């Protein structure tokens, strides 16, 4: 029996060291799916960029359901992947439990703060980016009514909404913002049909620019906006190319940079909170050949002024998550 134990122990040690020696970074995508054209796809882009530049390999896992969350995380950690990056606030509570069990593994989480010595939390100031696209939306709107379609109704998405409303109101105090959330479950990240219906409902109430922060649901939002002949605003990734001439701009959230930097830092990754704000290039608005004709010089000047104001600290954009309320509706 003891001999058996020794053998098993030796085998386990070999297996563990072999795993540790590999130390490939890993990434876990949240339920919206790797190819949601938005948040997760941006993360995937960052991981790919790292792989191309360094020639390294990375492990990846795409969640299919809620039950896999902890399992996937533990499996990657046990397989020796290091660091492990996960995209999405929903990993927060899981990581809080898992991280202490693997003190030698570095974790990075996007969109959530987890306080542990081996976790780097990357958060973005989405309210700043949303403020900027709000300014553009208010200027592009002829009716003075603009729309917002959120994904799952969580404080993070309300932060997008709140920043957007502030931007719209700063530009046009009389403007109306119609807000809708797709749902209250993770399925709300992937319901194109509902996204399209919400957009149609907002258009029939007079909205002529609709901003979405809804992951895969947003594909339906932008499609409906194109069909109805109004303007859409993309989110997370640059979505201007999806319907050239119908997407006013995109609120870019450089999740790709966050993943790229985490992968590049590897084992040297520092724990703590990392804020990717406008000044750091973490958020912004997308300009390219697909929306050049839609953005007037006035609009460009206004949004650049607003961006400069935020960076300089002259414009304070209220963060919904700081007090769970929004000063404007």
């Amino acid at each position, binding site marked *: 029996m003891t001999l058996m134990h020794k053998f098993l122990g030796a085998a386990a040690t070999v297996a563990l060291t072999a795993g540790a020696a590999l130390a490939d970074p890993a990434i876990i995508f949240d339920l919206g*799916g*790797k*190819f*949601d054209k938005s948040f997760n796809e941006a993360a995937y882009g960052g991981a790919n960029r790292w792989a191309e530049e360094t020639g390294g390999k990375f492990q990846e896992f*795409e969640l299919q359901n809620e039950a896999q969350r902890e399992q996937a995380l533990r499996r990657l950690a046990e397989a020796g992947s290091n660091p492990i990056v996960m995209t999405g606030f929903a990993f927060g509570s899981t990581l809080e439990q898992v991280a202490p069990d693997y003190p030698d593994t570095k974790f990075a989480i996007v969109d959530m703060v987890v306080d542990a010595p081996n976790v780097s939390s990357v958060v973005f100031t989405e309210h700043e980016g949303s403020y900027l696209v709000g300014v553009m939306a208010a200027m592009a709107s002829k009716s003075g009514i603009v729309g917002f379609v959120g994904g799952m109704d969580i404080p993070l998405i309300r932060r997008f909404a709140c920043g957007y409303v502030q931007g719209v109101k700063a530009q046009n105090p009389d403007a109306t913002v119609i*807000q*809708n*959330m797709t*749902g*209250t479950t993770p*399925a709300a990240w*992937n*319901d*194109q*049909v*509902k996204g*399209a*219906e*919400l957009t*149609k*409902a907002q258009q*029939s*109430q007079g909205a002529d620019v609709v901003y979405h922060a809804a992951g*895969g649901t947003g*594909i*339906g939002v932008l*499609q409906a906006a194109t*069909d109805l002949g109004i303007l859409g605003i993309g989110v997370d990734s640059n979505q201007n190319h*999806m319907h050239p001439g119908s997407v006013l701009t995109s609120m870019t959230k450089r999740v790709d940079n966050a993943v790229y930097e985490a992968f590049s830092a590897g084992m040297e990754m520092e724990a703590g909170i990392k804020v990717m704000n406008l000044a750091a290039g973490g958020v912004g608005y997308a300009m390219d050949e697909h929306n050049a004709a839609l953005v007037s010089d006035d609009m460009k000047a206004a949004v650049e002024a607003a961006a400069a104001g935020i960076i300089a600290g002259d414009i304070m954009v209220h963060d919904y998550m700081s007090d769970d309320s929004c000063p404007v509706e």
Partner: protein
Amino acid sequence: MDFLTILQIMDSAVRLATPLLLACLAGLFSERAGIFDIGLEGKILASAFFSAGVAALTGSVWLGLLAGVGASMVFSAIHGLASITFQGNQLISGVALNFFASGITVLVGEAWFSLGGRTPSLSGGERFSPIELPLSETIMPVPVAGPLYHDLISGHTFLVYIALIAVPASWFLLYRTRFGLRLRAVGENPAAVDTAGVSVIKLRYAAMVIAGVLCGLAGVYLATGLAAGFVKEMSAGRGYIALAALIFAKWRPWHALGATMLFGLLEAIANRYQSIDLGGIVIPVQFMQALPYILTVLILAGFGGKAIGPRAGGVPYVKER
């Protein structure tokens, strides 16, 4: 709330109810023949994927329609094989098909398009566009009837009208033809039908074929009419809502129309208003979204009349013991 707003909400309700209605009628034929069809969800999903996939590959929505209906019929045939020929458990077969659909669509989608199970966005002739009925612009100025005709009745895709025609057609088939009588009888007392010299097996397979076609149309409408392309799990529980509507309608075609329209209307209202203020009492949107299920539970609990399904439902027919 003015007239135009009501029209817009009803218009949205019709769009949202159409896939439910088609799936509900599919379930109606299947269950009336004594086959529980919990696999509606899977059939919608498979049909949505194959219609969008083939439409994207060939550029023709009509080929997509054929592929979607074909996929749904294959699923129906598997269900029939398992539950009629091999006398397996119908619920298990249906659940298995649902899981199979959710896996195979993403797998094939990834192999065909490498977009993580999505299909490319469909445009132009790859999707069904709204049909403007004749004279809709001409009678627009007529008060009430004009906007009603222009906004609500006209301007839907071809499949919406098919779904609406399917209701009287189903009623006629079930209640006014010999085939319909036998089909209903097979769901109540298959032994009696067998004694009369009519094949129970053939009738049940015929019901599965009809269910396959109707459910296929629901999926096609979802992917090429309502949305422009397929995303994984895009059926989003509509198959189950259709089953709830079927119980709500007590397995009758006209009532199915009413039930699915009610569910569509509730969803449309929830889409339009985040919360409804009824003079002091605010109804949260979550309540509106849950209302179809609450209504179904109430019906099942015996309020609003008993809902009793076909007596032989779920029982495989064994000719001789």
